[in-house]
């Protein structure tokens, strides 16, 4: 009994010391657990990391090998349109690209989300309020054409960007059920339709 209490005291002292090796990870996990709560639709469970999220949470990107393994795994999640049709209405797509709403603890439902595309990408020739975290997608279809290959790649990228870049900043719109299949079809039209302001000045 006495031995145990000495051990406990020793541990208490050492954990008080700075970053005792692996202890910092346990302390971090405990800190995250006691620091967050469920509010509205934002369940505390959201703080649990998926494997790839964990791998992409260091100061440096994981090794090429780890990245490739993640990408192979994420590629399997992509579901292509069951009816083989990739394109909806670009006008609807533009609305989805503009809307950045959804999935916060102040949203009523988790099923009414925007794509938030303009937060990070330039798209329409007419919209000047675009972010720069992602590459410009202006003239997307005009520059790339509409071969099966580019259409399928683009669908895949919207559905799960991690399949092509393991630690991409871009959300997994399809895999994480942020957008519906129909919404993604509208976004595809917004990107590819020659009449869309993405491609037409």
């Amino acid at each position, binding site marked *: 009994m006495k031995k145990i209490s000495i051990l406990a005291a020793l541990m208490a002292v050492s954990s*008080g*010391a*700075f*970053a005792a090796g692996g202890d*910092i990870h346990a*302390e*971090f996990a405990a*800190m*995250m657990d*006691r*620091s*967050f*709560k*469920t*509010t509205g639709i*934002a*369940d*505390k*469970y*959201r*703080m*649990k*990391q*998926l494997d790839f*999220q*964990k791998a*992409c*949470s*260091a*100061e440096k990107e994981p090794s090429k090998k780890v990245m490739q393994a993640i990408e192979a795994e994420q590629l399997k999640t992509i579901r292509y349109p069951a009816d083989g049709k990739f394109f909806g209405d670009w006008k609807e797509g533009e609305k989805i690209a503009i809307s950045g709403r959804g*999935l*916060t*603890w*102040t949203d009523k439902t*988790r099923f009414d989300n925007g794509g938030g595309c*303009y*937060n*990070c990408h330039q798209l329409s020739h007419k919209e*000047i*309020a*675009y*972010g*720069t*975290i992602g590459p410009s997608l202006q003239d997307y279809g005009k520059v790339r054409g509409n071969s099966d290959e580019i259409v399928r790649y683009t669908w895949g990228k919207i559905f799960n960007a*991690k399949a092509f870049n393991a630690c991409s*900043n871009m*959300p*997994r719109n399809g895999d*994480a*059920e*942020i957008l519906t299949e129909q919404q993604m079809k509208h976004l595809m039209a917004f990107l590819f339709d020659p009449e869309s302001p993405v491609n037409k000045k």
Partner: protein
Amino acid sequence: MRQKKLYVLLTALVAAVGGMASPAALADKASDDAAIARYREMIADGNPAELVAGQGEELWKTKRGPKNASLEKCDLGLGPGVLKGASAKLPRYFKDTGRVQDLETRLLTCMETLQGIDPKTVIDAKWLKGERETMAALVAYVVTQSNGQKIDIDMTPPQMKKMYELGKMAFYYRSGPMDFACTTCHGDTGKRIRLQDLPDLRTQAGAAAGWGTWPAYRVSSGEFWTMQHRLNDCYRQQRTAEPIFGSDVTIALSVFLAATAKGGPVLTPGLKR
């Protein structure tokens, strides 16, 4: 159409006001002076946060709570009642509580020990309501008295070093339905969301532009936001669960930011979009 016009007007304001947040513009010591000059220009017509600070001063001196006492003997780290420069040195490790505390959690301690006010009345309140509104006013009053100082937190105590490490881990922590972390928006230089410049919080200049200009009055919402409020809304936009008011993750992130920003100018209360 009218809304669009308003948006353009607002974005123009962002360009004018947000200029100081541009991380590239703060790349060296000389640009600190430029940031200070721009801040002075910005608040030349007054910062509405002054009104909030005025309320805070009154609350500071008013006898309140079960113990019917004021906060005039509150020790924010430089001794009882010393406010000049106090928030520039926060967060810090406090021996009396055995915790690293930011301004708000330290004020909670003072409210509890001096006035007998239950911290839960702040922790469980809504933003800008009840005792949490009182907290915001107190914060506005206190930070006004560090305006013009340098960010200067004491990283000597091991507890601070540990908080820094934990904060850094939190900064890079990706989770939630959108896989976001703080770094998604603040881990690169020269980026923006829509038209909003994003400080690169990994760098001294970027962290100083962020940490040094909050708490702030937000023109778009007409509200004064504390740092706890700012961090809370960052997590809301990350689509994570909600951080509890004053929780250790908020303290750890604050230590990480303030330590990274060390030496940068304190321009509080700030004025934002």
